[in-house]
């Protein structure tokens, strides 16, 4: 328990939280990268996936995008973007690299969720005379909702974890606490940095679970 104890000591030392390389500042940077990235990723992936799911096309596209996404190392994208003129624009390389990383899981989950809606339910809704729009809003979206939220949760956790790589490209975020600890051979600081990232990921996941339940369109009927 020595390493965790030392990390706790590190975390409870007020000086480590203050200043340019303190936890508060790195946490703010991390939240900024992750938040902007997730918002942009949702705006790109969700409308596309829901639409493709609604019209029932592009399944192989969704699967292929997610496979390609897995093959492209985030570190490589991050470093490539840092070397382009975009690299001078503060956190832009990090945000773009993370968006490329977050879009595939969001896209795949939302698409699969839409396609897994029971076909007989869709047929019944059509038989009742629902238009395409009504079918989408009142039947498909509510039924696909849990899967969409699962995708959002896993994307959020992965983005928060992966945003630490920004440190390897010289950008900010909580990864800097880890790399600084690594460079100084300070295990306590590395563990402390990892703990803060882990806590942030768990907190975000918890918030999304609560928000997911609160906004569930079928809250009254779905059993938890």
């Amino acid at each position: 328990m020595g390493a965790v104890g030392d990390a706790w000591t590190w975390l409870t030392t007020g000086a480590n939280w203050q200043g340019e390389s303190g936890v508060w500042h790195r946490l703010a940077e991390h939240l900024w990268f992750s938040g902007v990235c997730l918002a942009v990723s949702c705006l790109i992936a969700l409308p596309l996936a829901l639409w493709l799911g609604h019209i029932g096309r592009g399944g192989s596209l969704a699967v292929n995008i997610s496979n390609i996404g897995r093959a492209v190392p985030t570190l490589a994208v991050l470093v490539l973007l840092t070397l382009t003129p975009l690299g001078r624009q503060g956190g832009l390389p990090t945000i773009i690299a993370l968006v490329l990383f977050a879009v595939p899981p969001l896209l795949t989950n939302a698409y699969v969720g839409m396609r897994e809606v029971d076909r007989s339910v869709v047929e019944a809704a059509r038989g009742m005379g629902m238009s395409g729009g009504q079918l989408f809003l009142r039947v498909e979206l509510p039924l696909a909702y849990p899967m969409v939220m699962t995708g959002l949760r896993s994307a959020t956790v992965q983005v928060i974890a992966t945003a630490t790589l920004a440190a390897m490209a010289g950008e900010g975020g909580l990864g800097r606490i880890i790399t600084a600890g690594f460079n100084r051979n300070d295990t306590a600081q590395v563990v402390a940095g990892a703990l803060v990232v882990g806590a942030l990921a768990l907190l975000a996941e918890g918030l999304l679970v609560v928000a997911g339940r609160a906004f569930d369109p079928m809250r009254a009927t779905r059993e938890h």
Partner: protein
Amino acid sequence: MSAVVSAAGCLAANDWICGEYVRSRAQELTDATVQHVWITVVSVLIGLAVAFPLALLVRARPRLAGPVLGLTTVLYAIPSLAMFSLLLPLFGLSAALVVTGLVLYSLTILVRNILAGLAAVPQEAREAARGMGYGPGRLLWEVELPLALPAVMAGVRMATVSTVALTTVGALVDYGGLGTLITTGLKSFFKAQVLTASVLCVLLAVAADLLLLALQRLLTPWTRPARTPGARIRGAG
């Protein structure tokens, strides 16, 4: 970087695409690629060697499913940067450190897919084999594993592609294969090196995926959709 200054043409201009770079640093690129490949292969093989007993254990004792799957999921959520940093006191600056981290990451996908594959084996096939006098070991090796192979191979492909990408983070401890070229290229602002290494990394992942797909087809000839005109192959989840 003296080479950048002395060499003429695209190296001096620090172009993104540079044949001169590929020619003059062929040895360096080959070494990095070889390191990348062996780190990936060793990690996935050890990952499989660990994931199989784990999956069999979970299947035999369903009460362990929660803890084992939960633990591998938690491992997956640890940032790679933190994982490699945390293993440093145990392994020092070594390839074993990178391999250990990659093995831990691969377990999530591998254990889940092996379990899913075994669970999808038709009960009738098991009954028939038992009726023919197959013992548990022979049942596993000759009936269950071959039938679970498509799901297992899907997991191996996913784990391999992810591992190729994640190996780059090993650059933190100088055992990142092509990733090391990417990070040193960043430090010296060497565009050709970063782009070439990145492209090679993606090509490596694609090649590994295709190779494993071919292996899967070879091992499971009965799953090939042969001579069924008009039958559509559905993309798996």
